[in-house]
């Protein structure tokens, strides 16, 4: 039982998950689940109580039972007690003060990551302002590699997302061409396939590998099929760089995705066995998003942001190259408007970074949410300032297959210019070799580099 007194009112919170839920800044998904605070005062009362909570509480009380949930078991069994020792004496409020302090330098935060549980990270972000979320995250550096190096300071990488409504290879190649010219693709060239057909996935993997090989692009490719599809295709000899999977923060939610930890481990081993990375062995690409567990009716009465942080515990067990919170994709019943999407995007980025993950964010919104391009612009700028590892690059910000708005090649380019971020170093060298920079080292394509013509369909070449 936890409690806080505000004036004459005494607020009681029966357990840790209730306290976390009531302390969460307002969002529609928690209201939908019946978990959010009933009033503004109750919310802040919960935040006071949460701020006073010793961090050791999180080691003694789980939000989803250990016996019932393999994600809880992963969190508890893998907790790094030695790393935790540095903060064991702190409360949640004390942790916030520490993270913002000048003592909490990049190496200190790197050391700390294994000592933090997802629930601790979620708790500290609940009592933080957006500015705090940015300042803390900006101090965390998480570097990963496969064929290039992602997440170095001063860099902003871009996933080139060339989706096509029918997976037409020529249409996809046209979008890839556009993205490469505008400096996108250093995080990954990754297609969301329109169907889960293994044959199409195989064909798309072969096509991407062919393009990457022809242009000698120092990046990795991915078809975002279900992990079981990718695993079968690895066995059949398909050129798989990265294994993709959507993940969530409870065993039951993961089951609704048709996955479990064992399957992810098997898939990672299979991808590693191909030895396709030239400079690194980070072979996993995960996507997450607040609300997915509730959507699968698998939330165990836990608020959506805490569950999102638990998904990061799943991710970090598999040394991913990329983790992407697709923050506004799920819709207004979970994140109602631009304000809620903005907050969630910065929370996810900060929690993921604190837990040691190579976080990217798909800054996005659907057409049934109360959001528009102005909201996306604001969040993208805030995340870039907070040193996000990567963002999406979709032609004209309009994903014609998934039916939502993400960020465009131009958006990423504008952020690189505005805030002085560069592409991954190996990719930057490649861009320069193809003459895509102007005399001020800005990406300004003037004409199609000769070898890019290899991407053109026969009629246009």
């Amino acid at each position: 039982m936890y409690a806080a007194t505000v004036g004459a009112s005494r607020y009681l919170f029966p357990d840790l998950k209730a306290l976390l839920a009531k302390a969460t800044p307002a969002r529609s998904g928690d209201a939908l689940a019946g978990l959010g605070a009933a009033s503004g005062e109750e919310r802040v009362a919960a935040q006071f109580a949460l701020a006073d909570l010793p961090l050791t509480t999180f080691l003694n009380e789980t939000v989803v039972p250990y016996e019932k949930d393999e994600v809880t078991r992963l969190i508890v069994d893998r907790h790094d007690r030695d790393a935790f020792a540095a903060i064991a004496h702190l409360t949640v409020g004390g942790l916030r003060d520490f993270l913002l302090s000048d003592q909490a330098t990049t190496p200190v935060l790197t050391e700390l990551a294994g000592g933090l549980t997802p629930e601790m990270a979620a708790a500290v972000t609940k009592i933080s302002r957006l500015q705090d979320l940015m300042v803390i995250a900006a101090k965390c550096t998480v570097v990963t590699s496969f064929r290039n190096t992602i997440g170095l300071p001063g860099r902003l990488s871009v996933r080139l997302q060339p989706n096509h409504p029918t997976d037409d290879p020529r249409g996809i190649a046209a979008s890839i061409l556009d993205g490469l010219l505008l400096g996108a693709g250093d995080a990954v060239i990754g297609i969301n396939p329109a169907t889960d057909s293994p044959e199409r996935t195989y064909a798309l993997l072969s096509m991407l590998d062919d393009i990457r090989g022809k242009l000698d692009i120092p990046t990795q490719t991915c078809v975002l099929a279900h992990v079981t599809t990718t695993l079968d295709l690895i066995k059949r000899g398909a050129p798989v760089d990265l294994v993709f999977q959507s993940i969530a923060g409870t065993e039951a939610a993961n089951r609704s995705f048709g996955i479990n930890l064992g399957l992810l481990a098997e898939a990672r081993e299979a991808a590693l066995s191909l030895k396709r990375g030239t400079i690194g062995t980070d072979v996993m690409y995960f996507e997450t998003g607040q609300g997915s567990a509730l959507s699968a009716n698998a939330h165990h009465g836990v608020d959506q942001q805490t569950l999102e942080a638990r998904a990061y515990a799943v991710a970090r067990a598999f040394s991913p190259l990329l983790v992407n919170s697709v923050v506004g994709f799920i819709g207004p019943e979970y994140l109602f408007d631009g304000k809620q999407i903005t907050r969630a995007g910065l929370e996810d980025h900060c929690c993921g970074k604190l837990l040691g993950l190579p976080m990217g964010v798909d800054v996005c919104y659907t057409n049934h949410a109360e959001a528009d391009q102005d909201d996306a612009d604001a969040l993208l700028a805030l995340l870039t300032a907070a040193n996000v590892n990567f963002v999406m690059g979709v032609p004209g910000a309009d994903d014609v297959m998934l039916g939502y708005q993400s960020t465009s090649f131009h958006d990423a380019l504008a952020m690189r210019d505005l805030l002085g971020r560069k592409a991954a170093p190996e990719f930057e060298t490649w861009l320069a070799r193809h003459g895509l920079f102007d005399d001020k080292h800005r990406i300004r394509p003037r004409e199609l580099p000769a070898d890019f013509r290899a991407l053109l369909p026969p009629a246009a070449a």
Partner: protein
Amino acid sequence: MSQDKFVASPTTRTPDVDLWSQLRRLTAARIGLPRTGASLATAPLLDFRLAHAQARDAVHAVLDVSALMVALQPLGLPALTLASAAADKHSFLMRPDLGRRLTVESRGTLTARATGNAACYDIVFVISDGLSARAVQSHAAPTLRETVPVLAAAGWRIAPLVIVRHGRVAIGDQIAGELRADCVIMLIGERPGLSAPDSMGAYITWRPDEGTSDADRNCISNIRPDGIGYNEAGFKLVHMLQAIKARRISGVQLKDESDLKAIDPAALNGGQP
């Protein structure tokens, strides 16, 4: 002074204007957009705003049930109109749980229909506006014309068509349960995109029950003339149904292998003679 004037930026890609107009025939994606500096030029910026405004309007459009009934008539199946527990568009958007279940009255309508203990039907088709009334208004009937006659010819027992206003995918589970249908196909309006405010999804579930999750469903999304066309959608649906009935499962264990095989008419009856 005139040489100092700013020249609008479509010139950025002037050498390749022809190239991009050719490439744009291959995809609806917004490729090769005119640029000024790192940013979008004014014309594509306003094009985007217009498309977003139209998509927002599509979300709030209303399904014309009587027009849909007329379009479905040639299929020769009876049709029922039901309502989800979401009373209006706002509660539909904010309360997915309400969109997943029928009103008490609608449930009663179905219970009255179902008789006996054994499965009454092999399949039930459910149509719902979901997030785009325009999608099912335009594409449900033509897709069914490519599907229903093939199944009927193969002897499948097809339940009355069900139209549900403000439904989510899972409301089909309840409908299949009440009608005692082995399999449910939900045709539903997907969230409108900028280039496609009218995309329809088809979700197939074998013997849905309380424990059914999304992993138990197979889906064909983006059904519309410029996406997965009616003919191809019908082919895929029939192929999947054939596999589902033969293997008595649906979901992630069952892959869409219609690119591999042609339909085997003999197998349409679940492999039985």
